[in-house]
């Protein structure tokens, strides 16, 4: 850079330290000079900073420094944090996948538990669930369905790839928990004999 003169330096510092955009008059309260002289300095500064990472810009009758618009993306760094779904989240997702399109009330009836507001939000944020129109029923409740992103994440060609109720029963996934435990115990006793 060509070394700026004292007035340019002063205006540069005043604008940098200011907490808000400054008018010509406010600048002149800090830096000696006629309005024209200050205007000239501002033009000189604007030219100095053109093409840099910082620009001097004019908003109405006020001046301010700001970061160059094309670099705004650098100021916001995104970081992904892996997070596991809660038990309520995965159960709700499962119900939507098996019963879609399904209303919130239906999900609650199937789960046997009220679902909190955030649960479906999380599933939508994850990109797995979408609103799927309203049910033609009293109150016209909103229904939910899964998305292509859901199929992609779980490696499914279509929803038909989800194991059916009979498959689940066969693998023991439908057994009530207490019976399943008993079955294990009988097995063990049998082995002991």
């Amino acid at each position, binding site marked *: 850079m060509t070394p700026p003169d004292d007035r340019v330096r002063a205006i540069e510092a005043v604008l940098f330290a200011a907490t808000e955009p400054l008018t010509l008059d406010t600048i002149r309260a800090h830096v000696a000079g006629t309005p024209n002289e200050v205007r000239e300095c501002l033009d000189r500064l604007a030219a100095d900073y053109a093409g840099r990472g910082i620009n001097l810009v004019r908003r109405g009758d006020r001046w301010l420094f*700001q*970061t160059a618009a094309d670099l705004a993306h650098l*100021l916001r760094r995104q970081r992904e944090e892996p997070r596991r*779904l809660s038990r309520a989240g995965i159960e709700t997702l499962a119900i939507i*996948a098996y019963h879609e399109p399904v209303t919130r009330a239906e999900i609650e009836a199937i789960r046997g538990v009220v679902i909190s507001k955030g649960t479906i939000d999380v599933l939508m*944020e994850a990109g797995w669930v979408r609103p799927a129109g309203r049910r033609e029923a009293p109150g016209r409740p909103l229904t939910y369905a899964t998305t292509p992103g859901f199929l992609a994440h*779980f*490696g499914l060609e279509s929803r038909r790839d989800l194991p059916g109720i009979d498959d*689940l029963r066969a693998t023991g996934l439908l057994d*009530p928990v207490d019976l399943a435990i008993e079955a294990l115990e009988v097995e063990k006793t049998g082995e002991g004999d």
Partner: protein
Amino acid sequence: MTRPPIPPSIATVSDHADQLTLDLDGWEGPLDLLLSMARSQKVDLRAISILALVEQYLVYVERARRLKLELAADYLVMAAWLAYLKSSLLLPREEQEEPDPDDLALRLQLRLERLDAMREAGARLMARDRLGRDTFTRGAPEGLRVIRQSAWQAELYDLIAAYGRVSARTRPVMHVVADREVMTLEAALARVSELIGLELDWTAIDRFLPPGSGRLRRSALASSFLAALELAKQGRVELRQQAPFAPLYLKAAS
């Protein structure tokens, strides 16, 4: 080098008792007072006369006492130590014992030098161009932001297991009682009634039990005993036992 202002000499403040009180509050302890006095000798700290300094301090403390000013204990402790130092310094060398008074005087001088050095360093530090006073950062920075995005994770198994869990929880449950090795009371009644007709004499209850062992035998024994009692009540059998826990005998009622 810029030095902090030299405090007023003792001679001037002692003329005004009020001022002396104020100045007493101003000292940061006896070493600070000694340093100010040493400074008033207007020579390099390495060249000060410790004896003159000691004298000055003792006079000061004496005056404060006469004016009935309350001196903190550490000023008095220092005074006592300096009085001792003074007498040692004045005694002829050959009468000296450890510790060497010159050594003590040197220590005092070194301490004053160190405090002085830090006081001056502090003053120079404070005189620097300070951020927020002389230099300024940007008034309204946009700020740097880290946007945290949740990458939600779940496995297919979790999904399927969850559905199984939900279904199991809410589906009407059919209770299936596993086939246990038991003999019901009805079965025992039928068996004992049938067999009693075939035996003419007293017969031990073991003989009425079905073949088998383990849990089934224990269950059969319990049921058959109850059946025997029931049949006895109906007057269809007679029971006999020699002693408690002795074998139980059954016979058809005559």
